């Protein structure tokens, strides 16, 4: 079906079902109960799941398939956001104008940056992309282009937003927030109450979710195409490819541009959910985050990046909400001394210390589980099936797995 193999179709259908029913699946605990803090089914967080899912799927096309580690992909995310907000400012709040432009602009920039960066490989490539991203961050953070031309382009530190004085030539009087073709506002949410449970169905989330499913489908097609095979060949032995008389650079460049466009789309969607764009989206820590998502899920696997994005965004949300009071209530069943001791131990890792947990997780995954969550899942599955571990088991660091 859809021109994919049976397994891939099954994977696509599973992903589609999971994303479309996410409002139910992510809200397993009744509202108001003690476990409700583990619910993730509210629109803002669900939107972040799918948007970063798109970002990571795109990054994986570059890193997972070709092995080129870009440390500057956040630049395209920021570009996408700026493009969409500019369309709000010039035309109107319809997201349909901005998103194609976001993809186009980030694609053009990816072409330029990729053309230069791909002249080198390995560590040079990482540093070059990092330098480009930092340069673009500096330009947009101080609005250097805008100062050069004597107008506002990125609006510097404040971030780009829509003002009533903007031209907005297509705008209707009723428009105040981003919408799709005037049919539905992105923020509109239908809440379904079933007993103690309440489920939010947000228009913006479903818009992003449909786009993510399409993006995922496209990624499957790329992975299974001759082009995808070529990218894997670039990863496994570029030199041999060159000896066979094949110029690998156009293939790597194409992968770079495609993943840049994915990032631009994700950035555009961020602005479509919330009509703001800021330079901090371009900072290199943001680039590091998407690398982390891809690695954590499993680089080179289809489902891995989506899993990684969801995993990190979920735990970021949960961990940063936990404070000492919550910890005390968790450990309340223990004797007082042990309770206080455990709270002191756990305290640095939660709340504001979430980044510490993130860094540790990053290291642990890279050290012990280079194939990420997908490899972990495969190992556990093998354990349950009771088969002896095969020596030629897919090694995520070298061969792209399924």
């Amino acid at each position, binding site marked *: 079906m859809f021109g994919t193999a049976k397994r891939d179709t099954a994977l696509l259908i599973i992903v589609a079902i999971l994303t479309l029913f996410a409002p139910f699946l992510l809200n397993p605990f009744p509202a108001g109960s003690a476990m409700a803090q583990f619910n993730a089914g509210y629109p803002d967080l669900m939107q972040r799941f799918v948007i970063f899912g798109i970002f990571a799927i795109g990054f994986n096309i570059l890193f997972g398939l070709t092995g080129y580690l870009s440390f500057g992909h956040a630049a395209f995310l920021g570009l996408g956001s700026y493009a969409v907000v500019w369309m709000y400012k010039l035309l109107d709040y319809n997201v349909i104008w901005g998103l194609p432009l976001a993809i186009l602009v980030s694609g053009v920039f990816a072409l330029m940056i990729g053309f230069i960066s791909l002249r080198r490989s390995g*560590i040079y490539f990482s540093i070059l992309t990092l330098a480009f991203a930092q340069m673009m961050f500096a330009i947009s953070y101080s609005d250097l282009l805008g100062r050069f031309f004597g107008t506002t382009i990125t609006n510097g530190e404040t971030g780009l937003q829509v003002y009533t004085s903007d031209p907005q030539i297509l705008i209707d009087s009723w428009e105040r927030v981003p919408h799709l073709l005037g049919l539905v506002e992105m923020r509109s949410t239908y809440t379904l109450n079933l007993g103690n449970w309440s489920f939010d169905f947000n228009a913006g989330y479903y818009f992003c979710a449909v786009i993510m499913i399409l993006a995922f489908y496209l990624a499957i097609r790329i992975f299974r195409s001759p082009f995808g095979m070529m990218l894997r060949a670039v990863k496994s032995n570029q030199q041999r490819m060159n000896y066979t008389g094949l110029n690998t650079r156009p293939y790597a460049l194409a992968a770079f541009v495609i993943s840049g466009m994915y990032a631009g789309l994700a950035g555009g969607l961020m602005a479509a959910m919330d009509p703001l764009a800021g330079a901090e989206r371009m900072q290199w820590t943001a680039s590091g985050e998407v690398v982390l998502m891809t690695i954590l899920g499993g680089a080179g696997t289809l489902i891995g990046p989506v899993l990684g994005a969801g995993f990190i965004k979920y735990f970021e949300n949960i961990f940063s909400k936990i404070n000492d009071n919550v910890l005390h209530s968790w450990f309340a069943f223990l004797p007082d001394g042990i309770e206080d001791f455990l709270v002191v131990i756990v305290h640095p890792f939660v709340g504001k*210390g979430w980044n510490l947990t993130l*860094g540790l997780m*990053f290291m642990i995954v890279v050290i012990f589980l280079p194939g990420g969550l997908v490899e972990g899942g495969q190992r556990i599955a093998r354990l349950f099936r009771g088969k002896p571990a095969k020596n030629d088991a897919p090694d995520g660091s070298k061969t792209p797995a399924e």
Partner: protein
Amino acid sequence: MDAILLQIINGLDKGSAYALIALGLTLIFGTLGVVNFAHGALFMIGAFCSVTLQKILTISTISIDETQKDFLGRPLEVKTPIIENWFGPDIGGAIINWSVPLAIVFAIPVMLVIGYVMERGLIKHFYKRPHADQILVTFGLAIVLQEVIKYFYGANPIPTPAPDAFRGSFDFGALLGLDTALAYPYWRLVYFAFSAVIIAAVFAFLQFTTFGMVVRAGMADRETVGLLGIDIDRRFTIMFGIAAAVAGLAGVMYAPINSPNYHMGMDFLVLSFVVVVVGGMGSLPGAVLAGFMLGILQSFASMNEIKAILPGIDQIIIYVVAIIILLTRPRGLMGRKGVMEE
């Protein structure tokens, strides 16, 4: 003429910091072949060695002085650093005042140990792994180190003053017999001299000692040196410690120039990588040269005359130069053939 001179000396202190960090990065890369994204964190830890020593030295006893009253008429609490009780106010005060230079003595063993532990505990296991994995694990380590420092010292910059003797500025104009005054803070001059000494020491160590000779041989051909029956791994581990110490010392002395905060290392790291790439991966003189060159270039770009034509060029000049150099000389200024060519 004097404006140009001023920009050159202004660029020296930043250039010194870039050169020192890039030197350490190149040492690690040249010996162990590892790309260390946690090197900026080592610089930051060095700066926090200064902060820590200052905090330790100013641990105080609180006594109540009946002769002085505060504005409510109660006896005033007087804080006396313990060290002043031990050595008397004169010597004790001087020790506190000189805490930043003293921190050098404190930082060298600390940084050597951190470097040694880092190499033996973590980096060692990554020699056979792809470069991407090395980047990722050291990147994770950098986040962890940064967050640990943030947990203990908070997120705000901590002012760490230089000794009183180096407050104020030095007039370069008078020295060179120019009419205009070229004021230059003393501490920056000290920083430049200090880094020049460190760089000279590292080069002398590699050039004139037997240990350095073996290390250089190992950099050229690790396998052959190993076959000659020399335990090259142990020496490379020590080199990692030395590289960490160089980054740490750069941080110790940098603390009075910029109050240390937990993310200062990351800010410097990105630029230092650019410096290494411009200088040529694996080339020690290249790293030093590129460090000073880019520091000076950056200070030229922040001249008002240039900013009037191209606003904000000072923030992106380094990246622009790096891109131009990599496009015209892909190996960097002094890069050797065969290093990181794959």
